[in-house]
């Protein structure tokens, strides 16, 4: 392993097992310098990584000065060998260097795992490459899977169990890698460049430092770094690598983000499990700690888990390891044993706690003296592009959404709002894109900068961070209507990832929700999105499908939901129904859907168990839609208001029908006739009994409307206000007029 005073430690990125072995090996070797696989231009930032204020998980971010969206990440967890190597070097006064290609080269290239070779194309090639990438990034995981392990760490610890010395294990890994890479004809040009760069840096360090050197790199690279290459050929390979100016800093990271594969290197499959392995390293009873963690999570969810069950789970794990002929229980054994002994065999219950256990909820911290944060940087750039200056004093801003710059400003302000930075507040709240104009009140507060830095865990640019934060909120949203509102804000802020995630969550939730009020309440925000659909086309289609489904589900659930409600619940449902009906009419769904919705309303009306207020509202909506003829309505009103009905029910029905539709009585002769006939048919006693409910409905009308109604009833006026006399061929005249108008609006040359 040692070669010319250089020791090569082939590690598994974010592998606690190799991390433990590495620390032991460094302690034994006492190198004067530690060379780590990482962007060489970030070397000055390395000591900061070892600072005591740096609390992993954190990530090193590198991005081109002018384009933070192209950020590359180098995440470090507590159990990352690279991080522990840096800590060791800082504590032992060894020099620290990164030796990989400068970050600029990576940015210029097609990304960390891409290669610069000409694209051979074809699905097969891509698939092959994915496998290849897995092999390069996590060769130890590949070896483990070949040996029948699901978890690379369990394999590593079993290997260690059989080779207790830290030195030979790295030699053994290097041998394994040599075998794996044996017969390899060509590697991607990008990989070749990286390895060439590392070789050159190692050679330079060899000249510079006197004493043992330690090279910490992905196990895959060890054979290539040890192999003899001339400096000349290496330098030739590196000719013309990108030299874009990049900015670098650290950002706090989270457990779940460690698990994502994006950015540099392989994501960790289970950060929670790795952290457990690292924290309990060297303990014989480590598996008990893991079982105890499972029990803690389960207990927090309200399950009774006794200590005795933990003992049984541990025993079963031991027996399983024996049957599988492994030296000690690993991840799979502990999982299977806890399913059988703690979860009553329910694998589903494991799925419920899996995310919490495996991903963890850790959030890292960075020292206060970390260089500039990319989000603030990005904000400044956006402010410049939008020509908006942060000012502490309030200022009104009117934005025309039809212009590109207006849309840009609006999107920026909406995104900042998503991030909790309310630099701008909408003054005409409501339907933000209902018109082409938005009015904002702008005021910048200094704490917004702090809030932006806090948002770094969600992403390096305002767009990405807003996406990330909304996705998190979507994950936490409990009700359908809340989700619909979140999706609406995602689309308003032009956040496509978040809106895709939101739509998926919405679909999922829509399937499982049978809460009618929630279903109906979610219709208006979705309908709004479709009507002012600036969403991309595919999304609009998906939304339309979803909306149809929500309407159908809502209509099916409606008759059941309308039963036996108290006054408050009935009022809420009635309000939701009116809004949803409004929205549905505006969206103009297919006849099928419309029919389903009206069938739901009709079922409410027909069922004798429906709450009177809701039934009245349903009757009104059906009447408006022309599904109830005037005569039928008159009969219905007469029936529902007849003296046999309890006064309270009759009043509620009447209120449901006419609340918000009292004006209807002024203009609608049929309806007025029906009510009139009904009122006239009452004998004096019944009339007096009904007076309160009539008062309640008519009290919703203002004095002018009331006067008109009286005039209409007494026949003094035409049923329409003066000046609004309908022409017999009004329809045709309007169509002609509309045709002309359309021409004018579209800017066609006039022919007249």
């Amino acid at each position, binding site marked *: 392993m040692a070669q010319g005073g250089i020791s090569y430690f082939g590690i598994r990125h974010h592998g606690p097992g190799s991390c433990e072995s590495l620390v032991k090996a460094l302690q034994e070797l006492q190198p004067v310098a530690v060379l780590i696989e990482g962007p060489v231009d970030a070397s000055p930032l390395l000591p900061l990584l070892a600072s005591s204020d740096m609390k992993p998980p954190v990530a090193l971010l590198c991005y081109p000065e002018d384009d933070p969206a192209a950020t590359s990440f180098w995440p470090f967890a507590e159990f990352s060998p690279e991080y522990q190597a840096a800590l060791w070097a800082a504590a032992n006064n060894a020099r620290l260097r990164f030796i990989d290609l400068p970050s600029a080269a990576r940015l210029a290239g097609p990304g960390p795992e891409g290669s610069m070779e000409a694209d051979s194309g074809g699905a097969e090639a891509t698939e092959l490459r994915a496998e290849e990438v897995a092999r390069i990034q996590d060769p130890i995981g590949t070896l483990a899977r070949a040996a029948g392990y699901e978890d690379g760490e369990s394999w590593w610890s079993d290997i260690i169990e059989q080779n207790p010395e830290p030195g030979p294990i790295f030699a053994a890994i290097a041998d394994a890698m040599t075998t794996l890479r044996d017969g390899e004809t060509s590697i991607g040009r990008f990989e070749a460049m990286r390895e060439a760069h590392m070789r050159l840096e190692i050679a330079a360090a060899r000249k510079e430092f006197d004493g043992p050197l330690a090279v910490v790199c992905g196990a895959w690279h060890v054979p290539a770094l040890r192999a003899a290459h001339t400096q000349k050929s290496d330098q030739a390979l590196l000719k013309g690598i990108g030299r874009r100016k990049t900015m670098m800093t650290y950002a706090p990271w989270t457990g779940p983000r460690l698990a994502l594969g994006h950015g540099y290197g392989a994501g960790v499959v289970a950060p929670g499990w790795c952290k457990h392995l690292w924290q309990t390293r060297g303990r014989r009873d480590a598996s008990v700690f893991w079982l105890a963690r499972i029990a803690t999570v389960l207990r927090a969810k309200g399950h009774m888990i006794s200590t005795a069950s933990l003992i049984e789970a541990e*025993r079963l794990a031991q027996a399983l390891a024996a049957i599988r002929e492994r030296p000690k229980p690993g991840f799979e054994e502990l999982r299977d044993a806890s399913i059988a002994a703690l979860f009553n065999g329910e694998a589903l219950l494991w799925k419920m706690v899996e995310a919490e256990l495996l991903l963890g909820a850790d959030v890292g911290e960075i020292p206060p003296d970390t260089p500039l944060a990319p989000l603030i940087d990005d904000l400044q750039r956006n402010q410049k592009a939008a020509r908006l200056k942060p000012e502490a004093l309030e200022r009104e801003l009117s934005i025309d959404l039809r212009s590109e710059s207006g849309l840009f400003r609006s999107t920026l302000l909406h995104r900042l709002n998503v991030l909790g930075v309310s630099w701008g507040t909408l003054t005409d709240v409501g339907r933000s894109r209902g018109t082409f104009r938005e009015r904002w009140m702008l005021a910048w507060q200094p704490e917004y900068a702090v809030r932006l830095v806090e948002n770094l865990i969600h992403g390096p640019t305002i767009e990405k961070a807003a996406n990330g934060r909304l996705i998190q909120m979507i994950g936490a949203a409990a009700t359908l209507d809340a989700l619909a509102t979140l999706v609406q804000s995602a689309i308003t802020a032009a956040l496509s990832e978040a809106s895709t995630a939101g739509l998926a969550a919405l679909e999922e939730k829509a*399937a499982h929700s049978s809460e009618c009020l929630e279903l109906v309440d979610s219709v208006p925000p979705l309908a709004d999105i479709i009507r002012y659909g600036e969403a991309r086309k595919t999304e609009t289609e998906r939304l339309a499908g979803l909306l149809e489904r929500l309407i159908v589900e809502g209509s*099916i659930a409606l008759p059941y939901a309308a039963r036996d409600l108290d006054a408050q619940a009935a009022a809420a449902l009635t309000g939701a129904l009116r809004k949803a009906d409004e929205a549905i009419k505006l969206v103009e769904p297919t006849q099928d859907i419309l029919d389903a919705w009206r069938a739901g309303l009709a079922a409410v009306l027909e069922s004798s168990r429906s709450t009177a207020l809701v039934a009245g509202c349903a009757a009104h909506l059906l009447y408006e839609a022309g599904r109830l003829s005037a005569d039928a309505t008159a009969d219905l009103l007469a029936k529902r208001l007849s003296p046999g009905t309890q006064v309270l029910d009759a009043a509620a029905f009447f209120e449901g029908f006419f609340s918000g539709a009292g004006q209807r009585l002024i203009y609608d002769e049929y309806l007025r006739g029906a009510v009139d006939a009904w009122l006239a048919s009452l004998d004096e006693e019944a009339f007096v009994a009904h007076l309160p409910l009539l008062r309640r409905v008519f009290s919703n009308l203002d004095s002018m409307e009331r006067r008109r109604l009286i005039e209409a009833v007494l026949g003094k006026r035409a049923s329409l206000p003066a000046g609004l006399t309908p022409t017999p061929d009004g329809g045709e005249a309007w169509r002609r007029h509309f045709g002309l108008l359309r021409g004018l609006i579209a800017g066609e040359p006039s022919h007249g």
Partner: protein
Amino acid sequence: MNAAIRLPVEQVYAAELQALARGDDRQKPAGWSLSPRAVLTYLMGGKAGDGTAISPKYVGRRQLMETAVATLATDRALLLLGVPGTAKSWVSEHLAGAIMGNSTLIVQCTAGTDENQIRYGWNYAQLLAKGPSHDALVPTPLYRAMQEGKLCRLEELTRMGSDVQDTLITVLSEKMMPVPELNTSIYAQRGFNIIATANNRDKGVNELSSALKRRFNVVVLPLPEDMNEEVSIVSRRVGEMAGGLDLPVPKNVGEEIARVLTIFRELRSGATADGKVTLKTPSGSLSTAEAIATMVSGLSQAAWFDGGKLHAEGLAPSLVGAIVKDPVQDKVVLEEYLETVLKKRPDYAGYYAALNAAI
């Protein structure tokens, strides 16, 4: 010649068990006739040490069988849970047969099972003549298994009353059974253990007390994961049952099985087969066994009333019966499924109409 309809598995598969025992040099837990690895090979299929082919007895995930065998190796009791028709009893019988060479120590638990059938009973003639004595005591399968260090099988554990279930607690935790009438106790010999089976979806059964549940390791046997596998299971069983009932089997039965199973599987899994639409699931289990029953009653309807033609109208009533177990909730689930999924599938038009009419 033996005219028994069915022999215990240790006799049917005697050759395989012997072959496994011959090539088995691994360590065996006390009282076991095979090592845990060999038992696993017996269940999952493979090759014995001398090359004899071993047929697979359980088709499904290997981890589940590993957990089951490992549980018995730790002297913890094993509870196999699952909806009907997931091979619980089958697995239990093969486990007992392979581990002990005896799968016949079995108690079928019912609502009428009392303590005397679990612990021990009395020979009343003896009891009256001589008073309480060992001679007057009638051992149960559980009693024998404890005495001889064997595996005892308890079928459908949750059908038995809770008070009777709880007599097992002492047996499981202290491995002994007191006989207060004789002021003595039976101590379980090494090798003794219990394999219980129970149904986890049935309503109206006696839920295990948590004290008892804690003493079992639980393995849940799932329904078939693969559609084709399930179709072949149903086709085979429907064919067999129709033969037994002398029902003619129309030609289109294969297609109808596939359609009915698609409906069953989609509702059971809470998502359409293409995974694009999530669905609510009804309260019933919609097991493979129910799909078989639905098909058979459809065939019967076809044979006696519809002139031998099997179609959606004939199947719809029993389909609704299988899906709608709770008249309010399940009805909404089915209505929603019909409106959001089946309505859009032209080849299910018959089912859409027939089910809508049948609800």
